[in-house]
């Protein structure tokens, strides 16, 4: 009885399993009128099938769209599964082919740069660019060296022996002269490069000198203002000032000092007055000192009240400790002279 029952249920189970399998496969395969266009490299699938507006209106729109998306995604993934796969760290990875669709430009194409001074001249004269070799034979080092750059061939700044020409000053440093000339050429090249860039980007450059930097300090700005003010026909004497601007105190080139051996008594008087002013400005009460003193008082009171509380309990030790501590502190205070127990050098 049981066996037959079991067999029946087994058959049912098998049938059920088969049905489920079929359903699964059904969902994997999708039927479409027209095949989709796939660009697996870009993970792109284009569905050209017509959407019946009736279908769209019949069902709920969300469900219809979801079903459509699921179908198309299934087809795309089927395509991906067709690709060759490889294992990378316990994951199966499909090798995507090259993308077929060409994506549009992200940024606009670069504008053509205006030709540099040399390029203009070369075009005018019809000079062609000659391809030069990278390496040049260096006779002195007997090896191939690069044409320019680090350890280049025929570097005249690296000569260890220079003959002093007849026409030059015997005391002149020829080595320094060559190094200096090199620096000049480098600087000139850099300057011309920057000028080319400025011309290309139409940045205005001053005729002489450097451009002002973007962030200028207060000194630089004030100096610029004073220079601008003074650059008038009457050297800035009749220039209006802003409402809160102070008159320039030392606009002249040289600072003026008191004479070295002036009137000693007047010097003394000035210094004493300065001291008096400083004294009056200084606060009489030192905040930190006052706060520290207050804190000390509070601590002392607390300790005293604690001791009184403990008097009934443990007798001598805490009292002795407290007393010693107090005595030590007082002694230290006396030795400190002027109550500088915190160990700071005389600070007012």
């Amino acid at each position, binding site marked *: 009885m049981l066996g037959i029952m079991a067999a029946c249920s087994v058959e049912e189970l098998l049938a059920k399993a088969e049905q489920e399998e079929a359903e699964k496969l059904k969902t994997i395969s999708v039927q479409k009128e027209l095949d989709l266009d796939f660009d697996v490299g870009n993970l792109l699938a284009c569905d050209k099938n017509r959407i019946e507006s009736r279908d769209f209106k019949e069902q709920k729109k969300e469900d219809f769209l979801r079903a459509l998306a699921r179908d198309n995604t299934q087809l795309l993934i089927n395509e991906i599964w067709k690709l060759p796969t490889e294992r990378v760290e316990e994951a199966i990875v499909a090798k995507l082919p090259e993308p077929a669709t060409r994506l549009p430009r992200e940024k606009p194409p670069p504008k053509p740069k205006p030709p540099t001074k040399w390029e203009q001249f070369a075009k005018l004269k019809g000079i062609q660019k000659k391809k030069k070799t990278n390496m040049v034979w260096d006779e002195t080092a007997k090896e191939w060296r690069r044409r320019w750059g680090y350890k280049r061939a025929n570097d005249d700044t690296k000569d260890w022996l220079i003959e002093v020409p007849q026409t030059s000053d015997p005391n002149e440093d020829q080595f320094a002269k060559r190094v200096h000339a090199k620096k000049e050429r480098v600087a000139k090249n850099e300057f011309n490069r920057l000028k080319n860039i400025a011309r290309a980007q139409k940045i205005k450059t001053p005729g002489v000198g450097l451009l002002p930097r973007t962030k200028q300090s207060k000194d630089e700005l004030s100096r610029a203002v004073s220079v601008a003010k003074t650059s008038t026909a009457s050297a800035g004497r009749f220039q209006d000032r802003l409402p809160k601007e102070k008159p320039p105190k030392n606009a002249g080139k040289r600072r003026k000092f008191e004479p070295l*051996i002036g009137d*000693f008594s007047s010097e*003394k008087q000035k210094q004493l007055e*300065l*001291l008096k002013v400083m004294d009056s400005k200084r606060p009489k009460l030192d905040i930190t000192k006052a706060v520290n003193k207050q804190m000390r008082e509070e601590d002392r009171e607390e300790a005293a009240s604690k001791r009184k509380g403990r008097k009934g309990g443990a007798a001598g030790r805490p009292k002795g400790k407290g007393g010693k501590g107090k005595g030590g502190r007082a002694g230290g205070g006396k030795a*400190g002279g002027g109550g500088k127990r915190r*160990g700071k*050098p*005389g600070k007012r």
Partner: protein
Amino acid sequence: MRPLTDEETKAMFEKLSKYIGENIKLLVDRPDGTYCFRLHHDRVYYMSEKILKLATNFSRDKLISVGTCFGKFTKTQKFRLHITALDFLAPYAKGFGVAAKTTQECRRVDPLSIVVFHQADVGEFIRNEDTLT
């Protein structure tokens, strides 16, 4: 060499007042002679007027030092007091100075090292000159 400007004098006096408080006027106004501050190569020198008058005979680059150097002005015009000023500041000092390692450092130190806190006054070095090596 030149006298100090107002700002420089102010900066210097501020610094000195931290050590000797109001007694700066005893330095400025002395009963036993007129003393003055002069600036030479960013350093402040304290000298009597006699020395000053003698010092005027030297050119700037040949003159090295005059009187006692109290300190110098840094590139950013802050006044730095030097140890050579100690002789003049000591009689008027506001309190004893103490230098010690912080309590945290004392706690962190290895168990065999000894922590000493020594307070001394100006004369200790002179008093113990014989016993010090």
